[in-house]
């Protein structure tokens, strides 16, 4: 075995390393894309939005082989507020420079309305219905022509400005858990989140159904009473759901990997959130409120 270092000096080294990482990371600057609302993006994408499942194939065929495009959409014939909020938030995301909205023609969700909302945000947007464009093949060709034009325009016209960690919002998602996740991968994400928050950026973690068993542990991280109430409500909702469906978000693969209980898996997942105070709970498509770390 290698020479052992005492835990106190090991912690001292770790603090020093964190400090120097923080200093270099906090001052790091790179070029980003300035959006009309003042936010900055790390990408300059043309977003293709489909407004019903029947337009999904055409949207993906338009994007196929095209640089700097992403596809999002909503499958239902009938809209709902959740879906519309989510699409509009993504269509006006800082990484998006322009939008092409594609509908079939008989659905509730209106591609024209999405294009209008995007234009109101200062971006360029176009839209069309497949049924008014001659069908699948002609719609794909038309879409590709529009995407090429939009991409050329945003590459030419988007102001390129310096940005830093303070301009970033980073979210963490789930991954397959085993007994090592809570020791290595997830704490590494948490350490990055601490650096990000200390540099003035914003960190978002999710999956309250995988915080089960950690009610007190999580509430103790709340920045204030309001955040504590929000966390408690989100936790209680998730626990109620798990109880009602008799499902606690641990899978056979988790067990085979060494995890035994949802409480244990939750601790690994929670490690991704780092150690800084939790400012509150946001819903899907909501922007994190601006706060100051003092």
């Amino acid at each position, binding site marked *: 075995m290698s020479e052992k270092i005492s835990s106190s000096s090991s912690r001292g080294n770790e603090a020093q390393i964190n400090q120097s990482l923080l200093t270099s990371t906090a001052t790091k600057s790179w070029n980003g894309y300035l959006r009309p609302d003042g936010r900055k993006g790390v990408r300059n994408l043309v977003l293709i939005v489909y407004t019903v499942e029947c337009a999904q194939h055409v949207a993906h065929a338009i994007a196929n082989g095209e640089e700097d495009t992403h596809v999002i959409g909503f499958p239902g014939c009938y809209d709902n507020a959740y879906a519309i909020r989510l699409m509009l938030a993504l269509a006006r995301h800082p990484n998006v420079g322009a939008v092409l909205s594609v509908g079939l023609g008989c659905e509730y969700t209106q591609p024209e309305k999405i294009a209008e909302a995007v234009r109101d945000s200062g971006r360029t947007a176009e839209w069309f219905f497949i049924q008014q464009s001659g069908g699948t093949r002609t719609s794909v060709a038309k879409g590709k022509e529009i995407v090429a034009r939009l991409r050329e325009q945003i590459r030419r016209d988007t102001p390129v400005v310096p940005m830093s960690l303070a301009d970033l919002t980073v979210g963490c998602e789930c991954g397959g858990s085993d007994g090592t996740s809570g*020791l290595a991968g997830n704490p590494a994400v948490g350490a990055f989140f601490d650096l990000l928050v200390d540099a003035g950026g914003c960190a978002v973690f999710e999956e309250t159904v995988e915080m089960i068993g950690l009610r007190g542990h999580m509430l103790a991280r709340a920045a204030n009473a309001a955040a504590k109430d929000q966390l408690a409500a989100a936790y209680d909702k998730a626990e109620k759901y*798990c109880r009602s469906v008799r499902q606690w978000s641990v899978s056979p693969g988790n067990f085979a990997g060494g995890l035994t209980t949802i*409480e244990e898996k939750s601790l690994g997942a929670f490690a991704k959130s780092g150690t800084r105070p939790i400012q509150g709970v946001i819903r899907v498509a909501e922007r994190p409120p601006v706060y100051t770390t003092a």
Partner: protein
Amino acid sequence: MPRAFQIQAEDNVATLMDDAAAGPVEIIGASKSTVNAPEKIARGHKIALRDISANEAVIKFGVRIGHATQAVPRGAWVHLHNLTSDLDERSGTLDLHSGAPTDTSSAYV
């Protein structure tokens, strides 16, 4: 020697960092010791750091992760056969090795 990592000082289990055959396991992290495992324990799985009595809390990350369903001697593999969730009532019914549910039919009655 295979190693196991103890996260917090109050933890009564540690996580195997290597696959361990029956025999000595080196404990590193919040404390240092050697614990004798009477059976093989796979990487990512847990080893008891001290004797844990039935119904006693099992502690990892300094937090209660469930309770022992039987007496667990120091060195034992701690998993579905001797540790169960405080919340998930199905946790004690899972197949020890694959983790697959054994109560599937009861979910449909």
